[in-house]
């Protein structure tokens, strides 16, 4: 009960911001060409929801985001852990990762379009490439940082080198991997929306661009708010998941 109340109090500033938004636009202090009133935006959202438009485009976007991010997590974790403990793999991939890490991944959007077209593939590959690097780097650092006495203990308890990799190094690196995945999660939204905004015929990013071009600002803001809410919810759910997985840390 008190927990729920404290949680509620935490979001009071958001409610104040919403009230400010509504007040400024309702009384004409800010023109509705710049910022439509919040009430209008909410009304548009319900219209979009009822005709199924927002659900359809959300589905399209989430499919791309989940596929790209899922691939990035699977490949990035494996690559990072292997780079940490197998020298030839480190020698080959380290310079490649270092080279690609600082590239702003949005710069790859036109390249992906040329290579893979306007459909799902270009977005999925873009998100995969962009999100894989932070996961790889965190898995690498996490795996490198494993205390050698844990590895030695496992070996003297009869574990083979392969078993040590799976049963000791991977779980010991997990806290760091999970924080890398959180960065990747935020990045996946960024890449998803910006790529859809530029080149797409469906998805939330496309919807934002489309309503913007058509001058239907209440709908455009409604979609922007939807994206924010999804990003916020994904992050909160992820944190809950992490807290469960890392319960042993106390």
């Amino acid at each position, binding site marked *: 009960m008190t927990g729920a109340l404290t949680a509620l109090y935490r979001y009071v500033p958001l409610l104040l911001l919403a009230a400010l938004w509504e007040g400024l636009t309702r009384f004409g202090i800010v023109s509705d060409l710049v910022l439509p009133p919040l009430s209008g935006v909410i009304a548009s959202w319900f219209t979009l929801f009822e005709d199924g438009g927002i659900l359809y485009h959300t589905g399209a976007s989430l499919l791309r985001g989940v596929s790209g991010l899922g691939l990035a997590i699977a490949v990035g974790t494996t690559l990072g852990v292997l780079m940490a403990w197998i020298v030839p793999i480190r020698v080959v991939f380290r310079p490649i990762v270092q080279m690609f890490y600082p590239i702003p991944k949005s710069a790859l959007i036109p390249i992906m379009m040329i290579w893979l077209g306007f459909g799902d593939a270009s977005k999925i590959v873009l998100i995969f490439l962009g999100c894989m690097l932070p996961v790889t780097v965190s898995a690498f650092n996490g795996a490198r940082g494993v205390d050698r006495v844990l590895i030695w203990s496992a070996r*003297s308890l009869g574990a083979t080198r392969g078993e040590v990799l799976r049963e000791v190094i991977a779980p010991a690196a997990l806290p760091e991997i999970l924080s890398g995945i959180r960065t990747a999660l935020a990045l996946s939204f960024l890449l998803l929306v910006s790529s859809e905004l530029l080149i797409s015929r469906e998805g939330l990013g496309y919807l934002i661009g489309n309503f913007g071009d058509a001058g239907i600002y209440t709908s455009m803001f409604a979609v922007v708010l939807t994206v924010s809410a999804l990003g916020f919810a994904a992050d909160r759910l992820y944190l809950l998941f992490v807290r469960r997985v890392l319960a042993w840390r106390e």
Partner: protein
Amino acid sequence: MVERLKQDAAASIRIESISHEYRPARGRPVQALDEVSLEIRDREFLALLGPSGCGKSTLLYLIGGFLPITHGRIEIGGRAVTEPGPDRGIVFQHFALFPWKTVLQNVLYGLQKLRLTREEQLKRARDYINLVKLTGFENSYPSQLSGGMKQRAALARTLAVDPTILLMDEPFGALDAQTRSLMQEELLSIWQRQRKTVVFVTHDVQEAVYLADRIAIMSARPGRIKEIVDSRFEQRGPALLKSPAFMEKVDYVWNVVRQEAIIAQAEVPM
């Protein structure tokens, strides 16, 4: 029975002219051990005693097969050490429990590598948890335990796979004085029931004299065996700590170690 005898004979350790160099990421290589030779008998409790930085832990890690042997040779029951194995269990100063596993899961880890049924694994895990007096804490995570309890759990995990040799790297060094003396008693009582060859690294003179049959005293870096002192007593137990014979032995060992400690201190930067 024959099998068991063979196994027992295999628990002697022969260390022949072992030298070892550390190569730090920066700076010059450090000579940790210089031509160390030592015989550790089957089912003997041997303490490796010396000032910090004398290479006593390094020697233990070499016996464990954790560090590569680059100069010299270590044999266990006539077979050269090349890698770690479940014949040599180890207990570290900072416990080295898997923090994501509960006490029971930690103890089960090594048992799962053996050919045992699930029931046998669980039974043995519970027996050893009971042996170290942790019954009731099977489902606790290491982060929920005190230092002494963590070390008990680590000891149970190591003993559960029944190694013939027990390597202990300052196992009670991170514990408070009271817990340490309790743990010493328990280690002795376990060792009296399950005779194993024990190699016990410590810099605590009293602990070495109290626990060990023999004490190998090491010199300051680079580590060499300076002297081997017999420290066998008729009866071990808290009463021994106050006996004149015990105190005399501590005095003697302390005098040998002190010179080395002074040398070691002079070498420590700062």
